[in-house]
């Protein structure tokens, strides 16, 4: 006998139906609040039953997000949201699977998993809250911090160039690539909704400032602009061009192509131990 809910689920889900009772630990003004709200909006727009959604994350301020949603959540270890999400989606294709987290989580310790996730092109929606800083550990330089950035961990300025996450994801063959801004939650919700609708690997890079350790609100407000209407999201070269742009920060859908067609696989049959063992008869 399996578990039975005592009342039936509501027929229409409101954004607030996705919210748990846990109060976010985020600082007042943190960009992640906007992302949480946008995710709730997108989920409601897509009318995803909370019981059929699992949100996987790593470690960081942003990675605490699953706990603030009234859905299934898997708050893993630092940098490992993607392989856990891939295992979950492979084992449970019936679920909607999202992976969320921060720039440290996805682009530093977890970077080894990102291109592999992209090239597998499973139906997973990824939302990275990039504040170009390590929030939870109190303000060290991250892979997206600008060159010369001064923090406690790089007091003489970060010597490496910043990564362009969207360029890497595009180079890895992702089928849906977009960028949003936590201060523009309506557009962000649209992008996440489009990502959820996409049947392959959907990657949404979100500018989500950290008010406490690297307040980029003003900066980003100056730099962001919407991709021109003329931009053709099926044009990989153009998408790549926008992805490496750093003087200004384009928002919108950079790239979209149909997901990979699955390769033919055998029709599953139940396993018969005895028949299998007979192969080994002396």
């Amino acid at each position, binding site marked *: *006998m*399996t*578990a*039975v*809910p*005592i*009342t039936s*689920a509501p027929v229409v889900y409101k954004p607030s139906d996705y919210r*748990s*009772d*846990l109060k976010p630990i985020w600082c007042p003004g943190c960009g992640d609040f906007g992302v949480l709200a946008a995710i709730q909006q997108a989920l409601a727009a897509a009318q995803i*039953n*909370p*019981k*059929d*959604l*699992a949100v*996987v994350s790593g*470690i960081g301020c942003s990675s605490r997000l*699953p*706990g603030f*949603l*009234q*859905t*299934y*959540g*898997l*708050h*893993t*270890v630092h940098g*490992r949201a*993607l*392989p*856990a*999400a*891939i*295992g*979950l*989606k*492979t*084992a*449970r294709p*019936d*679920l909607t699977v999202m992976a969320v987290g921060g720039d440290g989580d996805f682009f530093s310790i977890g970077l*080894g*998993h990102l291109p*592999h996730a992209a090239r597998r092109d499973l139906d997973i929606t990824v939302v990275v809250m990039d504040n170009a800083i390590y929030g939870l550990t109190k303000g060290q330089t991250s892979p997206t911090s600008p060159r010369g950035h001064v923090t406690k961990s790089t007091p003489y300025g970060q010597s490496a160039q910043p990564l362009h996450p969207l360029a890497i994801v595009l180079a890895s063959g992702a089928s849906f690539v977009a960028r949003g801004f936590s201060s523009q939650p309506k557009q962000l919700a649209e992008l996440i909704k489009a990502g959820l609708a996409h049947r392959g690997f959907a990657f949404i890079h979100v500018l989500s400032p950290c008010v406490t350790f690297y307040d980029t609100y003003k900066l980003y407000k100056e730099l962001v602009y919407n991709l021109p209407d003329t931009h053709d999201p099926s044009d990989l070269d153009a998408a790549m061009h926008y992805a490496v742009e750093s003087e200004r920060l384009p928002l919108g859908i950079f790239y979209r192509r149909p997901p990979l067609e699955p390769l033919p*696989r*055998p029709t*599953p*049959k*139940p*396993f018969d*131990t*005895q028949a*299998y*063992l007979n192969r*080994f*008869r*002396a």
Partner: protein
Amino acid sequence: MIQKEDVVIRVAGESGDGSSATGEMLAQAAARSGLHVFTFRTTPAEIKGGPVMFQVRASNSPVRSMGDAVDVLFAFNREAWDLHHADMAPNAVLLYDPEEFDLPAEFTGIAYPAPIGQIAQAAGNRRGKNVAALGVVAALFGLGLNKLEDIVRAKLGKKADLLESNLAALRAGIEYAHQLAKRDPFWMESTGEHDRYVMTGNQAIVAGALHAGVEFFAGYPITPASDIMEGMAAMLPQIGGGYLQAEDEIASIMACIGASYGGKRAMTATSGPGLSLMSEAIGYASMTEIPVVIVDAQRGGPSTGLPTKMEQSDLNIALHGGHGDSPRIVLAPASVAECFHLTVWAFNLAEQYQTPVIVLSDYSLSFRTETVEPFDLSKYPRIDRLRPNGELAAKQYRRYELTANLVSPMVAPGVAYAQYTATGLEHNEFGNPDYTPANHAIMTEKRWGKLAPLQHSREYVRRFGAERAKVGLICWGTTAGPCRGAVYLAGQEDLPVAMLQVQMLSPLPVDAINEFLEQVEIVLVPEVNFQGQFAKLLQAELGIKVRSMTKYTGMPFSRLEILRQIHALHGLAEPVLA
């Protein structure tokens, strides 16, 4: 003609010269004719070329180790003689290819030349050399003669064009042997046919996992675990399971954790370097109480070490790899049959106790073949994790509910009203982060306490030998094979020796061990690692003092080595094998 109780035949040559194939077919022939078989092989460090050997021990009684010394050495070339003659028993027989080298002057025992290249060539194709060798050996020592043609046929499979010349080579080899004047005592004809399997340890692990209902596998290639992954790659798509060749071992186990969180039985397989990399994730599974099975096929360490040698040196990391107090179950099979047995139970225990289970195999077990009695599958049920039952109210689901036995109902996504977030942060019954002192104490006790009953289990020890004895062997993993051999040999000498094989290293079955301790005076703990990792575990857990016996050459113990130590502890002279 005297019939020896068992015979150890080693075929040695160069990778690619067919010597291994000769050994493999010989083992099959012996098994198919009803003998018990135990094989052992070495692999060269080179990808292609380099010296190899394939050894077959065959007997009418069960065999549990590779044997002590070589009774028959078939040297395909001079290097094979150089490398292996030191392992020959005093009265051993040498077979050699006179085209390759002359009978070494220093060898004074019984030798038969076997010009297998010439024999094969005369039969139509020089490349049938290995089959000719098969014929010579089988005919000389009575190993499965009536099965040879079938085996050659199966081996060649689709290469029908080669079949004729190979069968001719086989017959010519047999013929050649019959014309030799047999001067040695070795003759191993079977006393009857039996329905047995011939499997490697890796194959038995794959079979066990499939029987246990594995639904997901993720892995990354590594010697000697790769063919577990390859077995899963072949089978899971056929039965609707999920399979993933991951980008590394961290991704492998995290994918398994994701799948298991999704309600599916998940497994990965690796060797030492991969297990090291999995340390953090195993701790996460322990903390979040997510079942997962991890096979570690140990090889020589540390680091990249000796990728093609056996060692039992990953016990420490299996027990302790992971920061913080992170419980897990650790099992270790000693034989191919136990690979099946313990893999099934690894899944059942993982599910029942919601914890990671590590199965410690080793290189020798991974690749060796043994004859295995058919499993009574009715004794291998499938135990599922506890799932919430009855009515659920919104936001009331307690994933880490403090039940009487401390195992909590675990829901899989898809069930309404039971949504929760699994986190590696310390958490309360609802799964919400909670770092208060009282909660950390309670939850630590929960994670450890749920496993505590296993300490009283009698399911994961095997007791052999005398009821009471001066010397009691306690061992784990494949060292149990030579230990049983030593106990048997001691028995032949009327020397009572007791033995306890521990299959579960964590939690340690302390009741059974304490009982055994009552029955013996001296506890001897043989194992293949430098530190005496298991001996120290026994001391750590039981507060006792044991005698550690270690070997760290990358090679398993022989039963004679252990018997020698038993003799020494009794003040007896060195044992001599009849």
